[in-house]
């Protein structure tokens, strides 16, 4: 899965300029408020490039909000206010002048509920590609085949590319969404509990695909499945709520976090005593 560079309407140079050597994402003192009420505060975090990083913790501690800061989906939420410094590939994305379409082309996202468009399988991938300037038919066809093959969907749907995407099973839909994101050749992939709406078999397939993304993409995944974090993540961050405000309690290599947690709350959560 080598991500080929897309011919782009928006020049990528600004985004890929001068990231730090090992970190694709750097957060400093990030705070998010909804209608003046803090969801989490003072999160500082550096996500290593090309690795899989998992975020774990109980519901409501701000994991989804954190992901949404990274592609500025927070801009779409009324009453949401973000403060702090967010750098993706070295670029300050909180800059009001940052072009959101370019940012989101480089930072893909997979949601909890599979959300293919109510269009054909082919159109689902073609539409965003066209938006980003890929318009020649042969190129579109090749790109679509490649990404569907990357997610193991090509053999299952090659004969019905023009049938509705919503007729696919949940697991297939989620893989289509992954293919759709990969088609734009992003640098970073955000995943918000991508397996939690799927059955164990479909979930295992997605997990396998995520592992295969290692090295080519920086993956930041929120999961409630501690076993999954342990299996696939290189680093893991543990979130906890204090007085209704989320905090990043601990961030470490997965092996360390699970075997020698520093914080008693981490230890308790991992042992399943709380949360």
């Amino acid at each position, binding site marked *: 899965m080598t991500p080929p560079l897309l011919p782009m309407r928006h020049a990528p140079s600004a985004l890929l300029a001068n990231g730090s050597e090992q970190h694709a994402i750097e957060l400093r003192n990030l705070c998010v408020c909804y209608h003046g009420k803090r969801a989490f505060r003072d999160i500082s975090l550096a996500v290593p490039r090309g690795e899989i990083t998992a975020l774990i913790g109980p519901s409501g501690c701000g994991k989804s909000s954190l992901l949404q800061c990274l*592609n500025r*989906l927070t801009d*779409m939420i*009324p009453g949401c206010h973000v403060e702090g410094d967010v750098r993706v590939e070295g670029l300050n994305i909180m800059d009001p002048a940052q072009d*959101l*379409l*370019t*940012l*989101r*082309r480089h930072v*893909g*996202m997979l*949601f909890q*509920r599979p*959300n*293919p*468009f*109510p*269009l054909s399988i082919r159109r689902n991938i073609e*539409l*965003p590609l066209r*938006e*980003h300037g890929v318009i020649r038919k042969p190129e579109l066809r090749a790109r679509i085949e490649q990404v569907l093959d990357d997610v193991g969907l090509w053999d299952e749907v090659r004969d019905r590319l023009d049938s*509705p995407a*919503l*007729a696919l099973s949940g697991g297939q839909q989620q893989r289509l*969404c992954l293919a*759709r*994101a990969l088609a*734009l050749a992003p640098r970073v992939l955000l995943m918000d509990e991508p397996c939690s709406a799927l059955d164990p078999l479909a979930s295992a397939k997605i997990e396998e695909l995520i592992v295969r993304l290692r090295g080519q993409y920086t993956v930041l995944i929120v999961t409630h499945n501690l076993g999954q974090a342990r299996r696939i993540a290189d680093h893991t961050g543990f979130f906890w709520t204090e007085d209704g405000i989320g905090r990043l309690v601990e961030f470490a290599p997965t092996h360390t976090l699970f075997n020698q947690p520093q914080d008693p709350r981490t230890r308790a959560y991992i042992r399943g005593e709380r949360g």
Partner: protein
Amino acid sequence: MDDWLPASGRTRGRTAAADRTAAGAAWMCAVIVTLAFGWIAADLLWHGLSRLTPGFLFEMPQLSGRAGGLASIIVSTLAILAICLAAAVPIGLGAAILLAEYSRSDRRLGRFVRRSLDVLAGVPSIVFGLFGNAFFCVYLGMGFSLLAGGLTLACMVLPLLIRSLEQGLREVPDDWRNAAAALGMSKAATLRSILLPAALPGLVVGLVLGMGRALAETAALLFTSGYVMRMPGSVMDSGRALSIHIFDLSMNVPGGTGNAYGAAVVLLLMLLTVNLLALAIARRWQLTQPGPL
């Protein structure tokens, strides 16, 4: 609390009786509504169906409408409807998009516009007629004309149209808005390629409601498009809509009742056609585009 205990035989019996009464009342209401509609339809068809010949549709009215057909009336009606839709649909769709998609961050604007529309929707049509006369006929100098009538109708159906188009857009799940945004698609492209097609069945329903109201309107047209029976030569001519024709024949023209029934049947058939057409479009659409999960 001991509510969880099984109800005694007596209370159970009482509940069952209450259930039966409620169900009976609901049935009664349904039967009354159906009967009322059936009675009107039967009365119309009984008196009017025999008049429904090709000649009735394609001949000019004669003797103040007592004799002859509806040719000029139908042409005027369709012209007024076309003008009304041509003005109301683009404005309505634009306003609905603004309300459903762009007023999220500015709630106060959205609320203000919505309130105003709800007030406007409740204004009696005769008031719209007077307004249309003062504004389009007199102030803009259109005189009594199809154009003035169509535009007045547009003002009248806009509140209803906007609210139902907005409802259609709001029924599209947020999942797709988020998916499109996360893929770096522009708002315009998201609307054009995903949201509007997905909302189409709802939009069609809104359109049908609007057209129904426009076709049935009498009072607002009396002051704006007038009641001249001639075949209109242009949109600046006055012309008589079907509903006005029916009103005039039954109230002001002795011996006009028969043709009034005929015209009423034509109007009913027009409304029915619009409804069935819309239903067919929405159905066909849903066959090719399965809805949300």
